[in-house]
């Protein structure tokens, strides 16, 4: 159960995305600029590197407009925390939002994490929705909302976490599980205070 909190790790990675405000672009092949819109297109993809954070975005197809957005397909984000990939990705600088489809993430601690959709918001809230899975530790969930500043993760819908020979299950479609981390302790509760539920559940509805 405790290892599900490792979901906080990819959040730490995603939060670096906002640093793409100033980045270095290396196209793979040509780079096309639409002078009318100011949008760059890298039809063969390329690499965008944030030298400050060391975050590297590599994709088969990239479109970006400085100060506004980055769109990519077949994208991989690399960092020292782990590798993250998405079939498609859209980063909007205003509001500072990262939207993903076909999300996959792997690190030393968590392997084979995937979800149909992902959303990272400016307030460092990550939403993973639709067949959220990981192989190690084993995880199945419908929706996970991770609130980094408050060190909380909310699991919505039926879920299963397996760790060694132990499996924790929420067996009902309306299951809820709040995981929180404070003062070196992990707390888990299926009885989620209404204020937290009302604050975090709307994030899940944005996907």
């Amino acid at each position, binding site marked *: 159960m*405790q290892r599900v*909190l490792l979901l906080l790790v990819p959040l730490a990675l995603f939060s670096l995305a906002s640093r793409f405000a100033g980045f270095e672009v290396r196209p793979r092949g040509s780079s096309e600029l639409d002078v009318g819109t100011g949008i760059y297109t890298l039809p063969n993809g390329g690499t965008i590197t944030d030298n400050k954070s060391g975050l590297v975005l590599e994709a088969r197809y990239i479109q970006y407009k400085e100060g506004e957005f980055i769109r990519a397909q077949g994208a991989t984000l690399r960092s020292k925390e782990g590798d993250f990939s998405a079939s498609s990705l859209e980063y909007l600088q205003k509001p500072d939002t990262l939207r993903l489809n076909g999300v996959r993430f792997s690190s030393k601690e968590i392997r084979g994490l995937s979800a149909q959709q992902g959303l990272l918001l400016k307030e460092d809230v990550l939403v993973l929705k639709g067949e959220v899975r990981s192989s190690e530790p084993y995880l199945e969930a419908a929706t996970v909302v991770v609130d980094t500043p408050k060190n909380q993760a909310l699991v919505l819908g039926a879920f299963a976490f397996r760790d060694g020979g132990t*499996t*924790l*299950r929420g067996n009902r479609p309306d*299951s809820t599980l709040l995981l929180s981390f404070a003062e070196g*302790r992990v707390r*888990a509760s299926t009885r989620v205070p209404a204020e937290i539920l009302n604050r975090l559940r709307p994030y899940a509805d944005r996907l």
Partner: protein
Amino acid sequence: MWRLKTNQALGSLVATFLLSLAWAAPCREQPYTLETPEGLAGGGNLEFDGEVALFTDGACLEARGLTLRAPSLRYDQASGELTAREVEVETPRYRFWAEEAWVKGQTLRASGVRATTCRCGEDLRLLSQSLVLNTQTGEAVLEESWLEVYRFGLARFEELTFSPGQSLGEVLGLTEAGEALPAPLRFDFDQGLNFGLSEFPLAGPQRFSTRLTLLGLRLGSPDPVLRLGLSARERQRRASLQLDAKPSGFASSGEVVDGPLFFVHDSAAGRYAFGLRQGYSWADLAFSPFGWVAQDWRDGTPATQVQGLAAGAELRYALSLQEGPFRLRMEPFGVFALYDQAPGYLAYGGQVEGRYEGAFNLHLGYSWGTESGLGRFWLERREATHRLFGGLELPGLELRAEHDFLKSQTQGSLRLGYRQDYGEFWLRYSFCADCVGKTTSNGRSDWERRELVLGFTPSPLTCTYDLSLSPLLGYDFLRQGVSRFGLELRYADCCFVWRLGYQEVRIAQHPDEIPSGKFTFGLEIR
């Protein structure tokens, strides 16, 4: 760091759940569950703060054949203890309630315990101050417990030990494993009314080791009997005494055994003996020297009374071999006795039996015994015999047959059964060929038998407030008439199965049978 601490917390939590193996029920449908390889905990809600895990709103713990339910289950990581209040535990045989329960290590302790075998209600229950349960073996000890039937206190026990698979009758020492509970209250009618207490258990410090019999037999007939009996036993010692008061006088029987020393008597059979028999064994060899002073009526009448001393020994060798489904057992024996006023006695013989136990069961055996001289007392006497016997068992078929070479008679039975979910229809054909005029061991003359009995045995009652009927009907082919008929009604309530039956023997099939009707009443713990 926090991951390590969390790992420890969850590891301890899981370990505690694993240690609660003796508990078990339908936990899987709870909103939240924690599965382990050996058990499952669940509840309406779960709280875990890194130190204490709490399942609430209908918590449960389920493992091998046991289920624990409580409003909440609390695990304290610091003390490594699981606690619950108002606990209810179900096993296939028992339901327990406890005011409070603690699990630590392999031991569960509970206080304020009530236990019952009843499917509903608690008309039969044990109240106990404390329960100690080994969560690995499932063995439980109830301390300072009190047995109640219909709220009527029956007995107090300092300590009762029982395993999950044991029946209450076995736990209380009322029955041996696999036996049905004998009804301590007898109420039936054959040649007269039989009424009273039969082997009624009186509570001792550990189990029912003392039993009382107070019976009126054949009441209303010309030959009524008032029987008073008392028996007690512990490991190496047992004693029993039974007094029968009849219009014709008194009769008594009993035994006292203390290790190798014994005294037995049966005044009706004219048998008394005081002596010793000490057994020694080396591997499969058993040697029993004996000596006694005794009296016996050889044919059951004072005319053949003998008295005197006997000393001798018996030697037996029990050989048993098994190879796959095949088993061979052979047990030769020899016994000799010397008397003070008569020539000595020697008997020897044995039994050899082969068995096959596989898709079907087959056994075939031969038993023989030869006497030299006259055995004066029943204790050392081994009657001469030469018997060939065998049997075959298949699903729905049982065949048994035996040929006695000394009596030149053959007897056997064939039973066919047709089993359904609700019970078994069966027929049994019994025969005894060339038996007429042959004397049985009780001195009575035997006769020919050709009897067919048809019956139905319902499946054991599993539902509460349920009824079943067991009819049987027998026909004697030799005497051309109905030999027996009977009907038993069984009724299950929450705690007991009540039996009420009537059987009438119209044509006796064996010297031990008397043509008469018999009304029976019985009681079983569910």
